[in-house]
């Protein structure tokens, strides 16, 4: 199986979640014997070509002239990606059976390559413009929305990371549900192991008599920060704890103001964005991780907490419901409900045997379902199905 991955980001270029996703997926596919060639945007200091454990990475000039808007840049960048991919395939430097496109950001390159080489193209939709913006309101948003629509209709099959996203893509992009396969995002189990100075690290965030309650996410409406502040007042009446809030967003000042107004400003620590390493240690050292989101396509935060063996308290929305089973792998609370959130957090913090039961169940579930190896195997089966249909059909050139 020879796969051409198209992605606008690949480490060291990390802008959002697509970069680590494509990285881990490619690495694990290669370990399973697939030949993976990634064509992606360049990054200062990163080589134009490198082979990482068998994965060929081609970094292409991502269009350096100024662009009038993000979409114009994306389209010019796609011209460069497509030209480079055309060259390396034509010259025989890379051989491909299948093209895998990650999101609308590589739509025109992926669709063009599909047709000029007559190879099947599949797409992963990581999120939708409708979901990101809570509606399609401007011509700009509509253009992006239509591009994603075009991509999934050109794709042989589409991958979504949760049942929730699959129904959203099916509804919003008018794609038959049976054209979509659900393969979850993965987590790297190795990244959450190894020795660290737990007491010393904790000291940077909490006093020794305080429990550490972790929130990770953009500080925007849909992540539920306001509910957290409301619940915090209730929680602090029965537990001595500190809330460590990682992330940034337009609600940051408002959330800080509300915390001080409620008299709990000293118990809330807004860290802003943190580097990956610190964040992983925080996941490991936290006593509980809360995810009070109102909208969540997948819920990677819950997954990372679970792999770090930290109990999670999540709201029952979107992809979170598919990751966490109440009373088994975590606590599921009512969305948009501070009382429910406070109840869940207090329960986990006060009942240690309950917390340990959740910890071990959650970790086991991650190993069983969300390890990258397992996800790569499922993806490989998905590719094989597509290739089988392609080989049997009449579109393949004779």
């Amino acid at each position, binding site marked *: 199986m020879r796969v051409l991955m198209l992605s606008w980001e690949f480490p060291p270029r990390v802008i959002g979640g697509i970069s680590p996703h494509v990285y881990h997926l490619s690495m694990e596919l290669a370990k399973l014997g697939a030949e993976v060639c990634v064509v992606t945007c360049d990054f200062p200091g990163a080589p134009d070509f490198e082979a990482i454990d068998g994965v060929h990475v081609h970094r292409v000039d991502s269009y350096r002239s*100024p662009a*009038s808007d993000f979409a114009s840049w994306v389209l*010019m960048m796609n011209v460069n990606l497509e030209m480079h991919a055309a060259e390396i395939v034509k010259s025989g430097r890379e051989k491909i059976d299948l093209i895998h496109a990650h999101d609308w950001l590589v739509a025109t390159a992926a*669709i063009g390559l599909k*047709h*000029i080489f*007559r190879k099947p193209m599949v797409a992963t939709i990581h999120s939708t413009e409708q979901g990101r913006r809570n509606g399609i309101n401007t011509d700009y948003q509509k*253009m992006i929305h239509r591009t994603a629509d075009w991509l999934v209709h050109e794709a042989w099959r589409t991958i979504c990371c949760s049942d929730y996203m699959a129904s959203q893509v099916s509804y919003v992009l008018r794609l038959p549900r049976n054209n979509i396969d659900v393969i979850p995002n993965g987590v790297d189990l190795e990244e959450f192991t190894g020795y660290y100075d737990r007491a010393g690290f904790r000291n940077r965030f909490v006093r020794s008599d305080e429990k550490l309650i972790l929130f990770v996410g953009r500080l925007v409406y849909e992540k539920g920060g306001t509910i957290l502040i409301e619940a915090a007042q209730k929680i602090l009446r029965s537990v001595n704890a500190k809330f460590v809030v990682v992330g940034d967003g337009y609600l940051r000042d408002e959330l800080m103001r509300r915390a001080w107004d409620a008299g709990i400003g000293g118990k809330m620590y807004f860290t802003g964005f943190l580097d990956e390493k610190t964040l992983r240690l925080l996941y490991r050292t936290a006593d509980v991780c809360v995810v009070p989101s109102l909208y969540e396509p997948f819920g990677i935060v819950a997954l990372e907490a679970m792999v770090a063996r930290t109990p999670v308290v999540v709201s029952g929305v979107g992809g979170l419901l598919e990751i966490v089973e109440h009373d088994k792998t975590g606590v599921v609370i009512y969305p948009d409900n501070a009382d429910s959130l406070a109840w869940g957090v207090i329960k986990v913090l006060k009942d240690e045997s309950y917390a340990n039961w959740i910890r071990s169940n959650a970790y086991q579930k991650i190993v069983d379902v969300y390890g990258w190896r397992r996800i790569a195997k499922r993806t490989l089966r998905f590719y094989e199905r597509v290739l089988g249909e392609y080989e049997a059909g009449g579109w393949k050139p004779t």
Partner: protein
Amino acid sequence: MHVVIITWEYPPRIVGDIARHVEKVASALADGGMDVSIVTFHDRIQGLERQSNGVEVYRVGNPVEPHLNILNWDLTLATEFERIISDIYYSTRGEIDVIDAHEWFSVVPGTILKKALGIPFIYSLYSLEEQRSHYADAPLNIAIRNLEHLGVCEASKVIVKSDWMKSEVERLHSIPGNRVASISPSSPTWAAELGKLYKEATER
């Protein structure tokens, strides 16, 4: 000899002078015994039309609507042009000897098909962004200039209609004069000259 001409306007869609000119070119080439396929845009009429003179016209719509500017519009349409030309290439019709890409709108499919399938392409250039926008430096103008430069560099030959345009292309894009051919539409032998250039391109 089978030529595919890419143009953003072709009758009945008439925006400027290119539509009528390409129509004239296509019919003269067809009369001379060449297989001619036109790949073009129309927002309502779509599909294949076989004209009485033997010219095939493939009309496609733009897969994405709306667009914020002409560049976005062109680049999603370019992918659709690639689809149609690939379909011609892989169909029983097969064999495309040369692609004639008209104006900057057609540069991306021309270049990519050349790189992917090895089909030589000619860039028929009518005017340059520097001239149309008086050297304006907005990101949009720069992007269009970049596409024109890509076409000038990647095409096996650039065809212009006057010696003055030839000198302008050479000056603004610093390319050697033998890469640019001037064929005046008023010359009695223009169709033969064009046919000769196509032939040269395929022989490279």
